[in-house]
């Protein structure tokens, strides 16, 4: 179990994360979602002991995480920029990770480099943005760290490379179960991987739910404006759109089958709300 208790991160007078309490059972894939500047990277930095929280505690399996060799050795945090010296060759990075990572799989790393068509003789400085991200993916997956944190690791990767990344992530997770926390803005693209979703906004925890629960939590009601207005009266409206006499309203509410039947009889249609739509509605609603 990964526990965060009252975790805050401040940079001078700027509060990046404030009083976050979270319990994360291990062995799941988490999606960490938040708008730009919401505190995702700061939260992940604290989780990976890259930064000591300004206040609060992070515990992994009951042990304080910060500067704990047993925890840090088993944690791999890949940031959106490749943490390396630009003059280093890719093979040197891979070799170095192999020296220090207890569960490092060198064959798998070599296979991933092939998959992403990365020449290990190249220097980091000569890699494109997407190739650097791909090297980050290689380092993150081949480390097989029990806690793997990927912070917008896809940046610059083309659609083919991203698809390969998601496929490898899932395959390797199934073969070597571990806790994976992914921060992303490409929500719809990866939402299928997430078992749980964490949403933070302005440094505060907004939501932590099973992905399926989140998907089923809302509904979009579409139909004649008057019928929609009557149906949604008294419900929590997350968003609405109108075109001519037709209105679509997104509700933070799960209707009972009888209510769906009643709505359909009034000419309404009901649609699911995707994780991304839910994220947009929830984060907009707080502003």
């Amino acid at each position, binding site marked *: 179990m990964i526990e965060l208790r009252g975790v805050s991160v401040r940079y001078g007078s700027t509060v990046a994360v404030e009083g976050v309490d979270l319990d994360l059972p291990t062995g799941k894939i988490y999606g960490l979602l938040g708008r730009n500047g919401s505190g995702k990277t700061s939260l992940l930095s604290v989780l990976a*002991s890259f930064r000591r929280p300004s206040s609060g505690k992070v515990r992994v399996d009951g042990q304080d995480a910060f500067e704990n060799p047993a925890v840090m*050795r088993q944690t791999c945090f890949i940031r959106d920029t490749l*943490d390396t*010296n630009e003059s280093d060759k890719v093979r040197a990075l891979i070799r170095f990770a192999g*020296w*220090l990572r207890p569960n490092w799989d060198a064959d798998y790393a070599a296979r991933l480099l092939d998959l992403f068509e990365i020449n290990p003789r190249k220097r980091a400085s000569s890699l494109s943005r997407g190739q650097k991200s791909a090297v980050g993916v290689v380092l993150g997956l081949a480390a097989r760290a029990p806690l793997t944190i990927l912070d917008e690791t896809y940046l610059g990767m083309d659609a083919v490379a991203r698809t390969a990344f998601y496929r490898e992530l899932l395959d390797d997770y199934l073969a070597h179960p571990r806790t994976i926390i992914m921060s992303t803005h490409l929500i719809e693209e990866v939402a299928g991987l997430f078992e749980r979703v964490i949403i933070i906004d302005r440094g505060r925890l907004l939501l932590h739910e099973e992905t399926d629960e989140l998907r089923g939590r809302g509904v979009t009601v579409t139909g004649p404006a008057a019928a929609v207005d009557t149906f949604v009266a008294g419900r929590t409206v997350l968003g609405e759109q109108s075109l001519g006499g037709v209105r679509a309203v997104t509700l933070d509410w799960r209707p009972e089958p009888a209510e769906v039947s009643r709505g359909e009889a009034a000419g309404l249609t009901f649609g699911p709300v995707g994780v991304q739509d839910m994220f947009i509605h929830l984060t907009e609603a707080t502003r």
Partner: protein
Amino acid sequence: MSVTRALFRVYRPIIFPFAVILVAADVIATVAVAAVNDLGFSMWLVLGGQAAKYWILVVGIILVAMQLRQFVVNGATRHEFLAGVAVFGLVLVVGWAVAIVLGHGIESALLGAVGKRAPGYPVLTAGGALRQFGQQLPISLAYLVSGLTIAIGFYRWRAWIGLGVMLGGAVPAFVADWLLGFNEWGGLTHSVPPYPAGLALSLAATGLVAWGFHRAISDVPIRRTAG
């Protein structure tokens, strides 16, 4: 693999070429001077003793600026890194102090054998070897600690705070040079205070700044870049 072992692996391709270049430069310069005149000073003490200490300073800077992040990113704690640097650094400075004495001894013997020692040449004696080792070791240690501290100042804080830390971080190197620095004849550059007092003061300055470095690195945020 331990941090110390990994550091030696990382620096092996740096240390050996550097040593080869230094020895080659010394041999070429010595032969060139000896072809014209007998040597009245030790070329090895000039190159290996007075010039190469700046290389140790640079190693200290690089250890923080380039290696700290890499080790922590790959799962080492800051304290593991610090312990690894301490062992690596001690081996490096002790090894260098031994190399200075050995190099001077070899140079002294070879020049004597070919009759190229001028009367003023500092012929190495057993007592002189011990004194040289006792001077070079704290100087190298001081330069390493200065390098580490100067780098952590810029890595941890903003540039203008880093500048302040740089001034403080340079104190061990400055103090060691002033109190223990030796010239091309192997003697102390400045004769006051006497060696024991100079050694004590130098080690105190180095120890104090090393303690500050330890404090600064113990919870330093792992940034993408310095500043």
